[in-house]
């Protein structure tokens, strides 16, 4: 038997491209967020609310990732925000190379805030760096307050948690304090916003925070 020593990271190629993306964004002062959640948590609705609040203050663009269809890109385009749709054809997450391709299709010289809406999935996207400044995980109250414990990698790797659909609290089995506590057990540094895209509650606080990021580029 012979042993060949390798000692290489399996995702090294992805990580290299992600680092290149990150340098590109940093050089241009673009603040990039990677939005992750399970399907239906409200990522696109949050983007819509964000466009309404910030369109006069920040120049925004979106890279959409979906398994099929460009339905989300159509929703974004309604707001006259530049958007590129990536269809992964079954792939469960975005990779840095796909994002790099999409970047080539956007005029990023005139963008302050770039949102990358990942494929709806609380597992796979956590392991793939895209070159973003930070990950924003969205969890809706209908999913239950135990999810941070069940999908710890996603909550540990994120910097911001948006708890969406807080207007449904009276009707669903989800305790906000428990949800928040569980998320902070996994990641004590998480910045948490409680929001509702239906009523608009909490959206201002989230957008205010985002406005600061878009202005400073970091």
């Amino acid at each position, binding site marked *: *038997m012979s042993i060949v020593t390798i000692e290489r990271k399996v*995702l090294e*190629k992805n990580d290299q491209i992600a680092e290149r993306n990150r340098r590109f964004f940093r050089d241009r002062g673009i603040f990039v967020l990677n939005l992750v959640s399970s399907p239906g948590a409200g990522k696109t609705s949050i983007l819509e609310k964000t466009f309404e609040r910030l369109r006069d203050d920040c120049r925004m663009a979106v890279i959409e990732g979906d398994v099929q269809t460009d339905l989300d890109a159509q929703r974004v385009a309604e707001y006259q925000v530049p958007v590129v749709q990536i269809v992964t054809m079954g792939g469960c997450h975005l990779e840095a190379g796909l994002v790099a391709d999409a970047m080539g299709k956007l005029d990023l010289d005139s963008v302050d805030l770039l949102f990358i809406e990942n494929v709806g999935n609380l597992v796979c996207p956590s392991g793939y760096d895209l070159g973003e400044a930070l990950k924003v995980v969205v969890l809706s109250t209908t999913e239950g307050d135990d999810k941070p414990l069940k999908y710890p990698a996603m909550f540990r790797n994120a910097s911001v948690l948006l708890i969406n659909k807080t207007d449904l609290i009276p009707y669903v089995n989800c305790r906000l304090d428990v949800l928040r506590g569980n998320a902070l057990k996994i990641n004590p540094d998480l910045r948490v916003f409680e929001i509702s895209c239906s009523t608009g509650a909490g959206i201002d606080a989230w957008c205010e925070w985002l406005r600061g990021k878009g202005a400073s580029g970091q």
Partner: protein
Amino acid sequence: MKNEAKTQYLCHPRLRFVIMHELGIAQNIMEIVRQSVPEGLARDIRKIRVRVGQFAGVVPDSLDFCFGVMAGESEMPRAALLIEEVPTACRCRGCGREFEMEELVFLCPHCGGTDLEVISGKELEVVDIELVDHGGEAL
């Protein structure tokens, strides 16, 4: 399978209905192996040792399954994965102590601190490759 899929998936036909990222990871592992072992020796590969952290978001059984299907029809048909799982461990920036985590609660069991650095458990690496020798031919 009664309904023929209309979608063109970018993966092995036998795994057309398997949508998991372990498939892509298995492909990456094969690619790294191809870059490391001369093509003529691929048939001699028996084991590929990989390190998978508990916190890497990878299901070892799924990875093993995907790799097995792909390797079986590749130039390295007798290659098998040897998966070493690495537990999640942290260092507390408060008291400086290191500990392994049984449950994923980011709380130092010694001082109760929450400022923790994950020092292992995120690994996803190809460690080494074992090949059978042919006539004492060194690699």
